[in-house]
């Protein structure tokens, strides 16, 4: 593998400006308006509305059967919405055949034509457009150079490695200069190391060409690294649309909190509701939980408090804070190299997962099985979930 990742760029200045989706009156490039898709009795996509802006790399994230692939197939034109409509660059796509859409797709299986060479695969779309032969040759050459396969143009797909096939598929989808590129699990078939490399490559290409990407994935890590924004889907509905950081730190529901990363949930009752803070009494946690941001809830309402495993600190001594401090016994330790995972059982029987970075090599000596430990976290580290 030649490495393109050596030019791994830090976040570009553009990303630090106000993102386009937060700007007032920005014109969305792709508009999904109340789209529903039914297969017989089954509703695959349920009244989804979504705006995606130019140059975005939008990830549709969900488990299998969440409707994310169906939504993507509707954008490509392989399926027609049962109701609702899709606009690309202001043009209504209803009834527009797949071969007439300004959209190209990279398939999960790559769908390379096995009987055509790499160069012919890439040239396929341009030939259908009736582009002049010389221009086809030039554009195919440029595109293959970009994905670093310039020397392999005459090979057949069966003679390529998985990573090379993935890049041929990408080149084939990009060579037509689509306004919108759809990627179905683009990294799904690659091994872990190659995935990481390709992720950055994909982001570089997207920035370079300024194409709007819509990526479908079930892999939250992939979504987190790639996306400008993530749309989390469940049962055909988009449950949350946010930037990766916000989706992780401020999940809007228990589903999102549990789907993205792992999380500890404590059920509790609201005992103090101030405009900028909430205090919750949780039997499960065996402590009062204090959160320093306000939510819309009523006193005595049953809510869940979500705390990520890496936000919790572990100690032998009582830290002496009255809120957000639990105690329990270490049930299990999993050493995972860069971090260690602890499972602590509280007096209520509730199990809590905690991860600790392995700052020093002897953390395993400090905490061991059956140790009585205290768990505590900062007041801004947890989120209250009402749904």
């Amino acid at each position, binding site marked *: 593998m030649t490495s393109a990742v050596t030019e791994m760029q830090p976040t570009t200045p553009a990303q630090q400006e106000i993102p386009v989706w937060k700007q007032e009156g920005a014109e969305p490039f792709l508009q999904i308006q109340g789209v529903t898709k039914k297969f017989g009795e089954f509703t695959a996509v349920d009244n989804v509305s979504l705006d995606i802006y130019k140059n975005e790399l939008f990830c549709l994230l969900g488990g299998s059967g969440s409707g994310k692939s169906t939504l993507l197939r509707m954008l*490509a*034109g*392989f399926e027609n919405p049962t109701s609702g409509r899709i606009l690309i660059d202001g043009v209504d796509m209803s009834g527009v*055949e*797949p*071969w*007439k859409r300004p*959209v*190209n*797709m990279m*398939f999960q*299986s790559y*769908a*390379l*034509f*096995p*009987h055509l060479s790499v160069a012919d695969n890439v040239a*396929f*779309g341009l030939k*259908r*457009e009736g582009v002049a032969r010389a221009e086809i040759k030039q554009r195919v050459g440029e595109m293959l150079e970009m994905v670093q396969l310039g020397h392999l143009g005459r090979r057949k797909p069966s003679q390529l490695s998985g990573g090379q096939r993935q890049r041929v598929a990408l080149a*084939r*989808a990009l060579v*037509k200069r689509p306004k919108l590129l759809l990627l179905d699990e683009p990294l799904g078939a690659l091994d872990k190391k190659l995935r990481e490399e390709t992720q950055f490559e994909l982001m570089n290409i997207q920035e370079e060409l300024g194409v709007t990407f819509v990526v479908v994935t079930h892999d939250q890590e992939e979504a987190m690294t790639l996306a400008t924004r993530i749309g989390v889907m469940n049962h055909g509905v988009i449950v949350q649309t946010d930037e990766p950081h916000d989706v992780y730190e401020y999940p809007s529901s228990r589903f999102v909190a549990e789907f993205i990363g792992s999380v500890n949930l404590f059920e509790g009752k609201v005992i103090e509701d101030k405009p900028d803070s909430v205090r919750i009494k949780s039997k499960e946690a065996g402590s009062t939980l204090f959160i320093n941001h306000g939510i819309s809830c009523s006193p005595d309402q049953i809510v869940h408090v979500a705390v990520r495993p890496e936000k919790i600190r572990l100690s032998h001594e009582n830290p002496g804070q009255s809120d957000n401090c639990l105690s329990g016994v270490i049930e299990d330790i999993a050493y995972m190299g860069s971090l260690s995972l602890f499972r602590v059982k509280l007096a209520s029987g509730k199990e809590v997962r905690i991860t600790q970075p392995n700052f020093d090599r002897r953390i395993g000596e400090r905490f061991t099985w059956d140790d009585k430990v205290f768990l505590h976290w900062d007041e801004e580290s947890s989120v209250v979930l009402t749904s």
Partner: protein
Amino acid sequence: MSGKPPVQAGPTVAAVDAITQGLAKYNFFRRVSWGRLAVIAVPMLWLAVFFFVPFLVVFKISLAETAIAIPPYTALLEWVGDMEEAYVTLKLNLGNYLYLLDDVFYLDAYLSSIKIAGISTFCTLLVAFPIAYLMARSNGSTRALLLALVILPFWTSFLLRVYAWMGILKKNGLVNDILMGLGIVDEPLTMLQTDFAVYLGIVYTYLPFMVLPLYSALEKLDMTLLEAAEDLGSRPVTSFFLITLPLSLPGIVAGCLLVFIPAVGEFVIPALLGSPDTLMIGRVLWDEFFLNRDWPMASAVAIMMLIILVLPIMLIRNSQGKEESA
């Protein structure tokens, strides 16, 4: 996990290595080679006894001369002489082959056979492709039903089915009755004893041999390839010619060979459905054997047909093999 102490490579180790390797080779030879042989031997023996030996016998007869004897041809090897001085004579007669090349009748028969077989193979392909496509695209139960329908005719005797076509095609047969009854034609059409009937008979009879390989090729075709083609701006018709057709080519070749080869030598269909003028090599063979009782000539005709058929097939296979390895 636990580190092993480094192995001291010395003469002893090398010797042991050599012995183990030698043993491994021996073992490999004993197990794989005999097992393989046993598996291959059965079909090879079958082919040798029931194909190659008869072929040699026919080839031998083709080099003999006719004789009024039982069997009606001369022997190639003969003991000549008496007890003191005996030797073997070998008499090869190439006259039959020379006659084949000399007489235009045989050339006409070969060409006409190839033409009839070629046209009917093409027609079979045209009929079989949509059937195979539908089968490959339909879901489980429909697929099983269609497959059963394709195979079902085999349950009736082939001869019986050809006779049934005679009933359908004859002057006062089913088709003419319907056409007359509907007032489409005033006089019955002559369909039986024409080349048309021969084409129809071959297409009908050999359809399953075309459908099955096509089906197996089309079934393997990945539907997302067609979606990818559409996505890249190709209309369905274009996708068919650029994707579906090239990818089902192995099935097309296999099906065409399975139909073409037996069709060239077909005897029953032209005899029953064709006109007396329908010249096919199968009938020539029959006539040589049973009317002229010229076994050597008939054998030469058969050998020649084999050569005409086998050569192009070998060429096709050869070019395919090259393409795959390229």
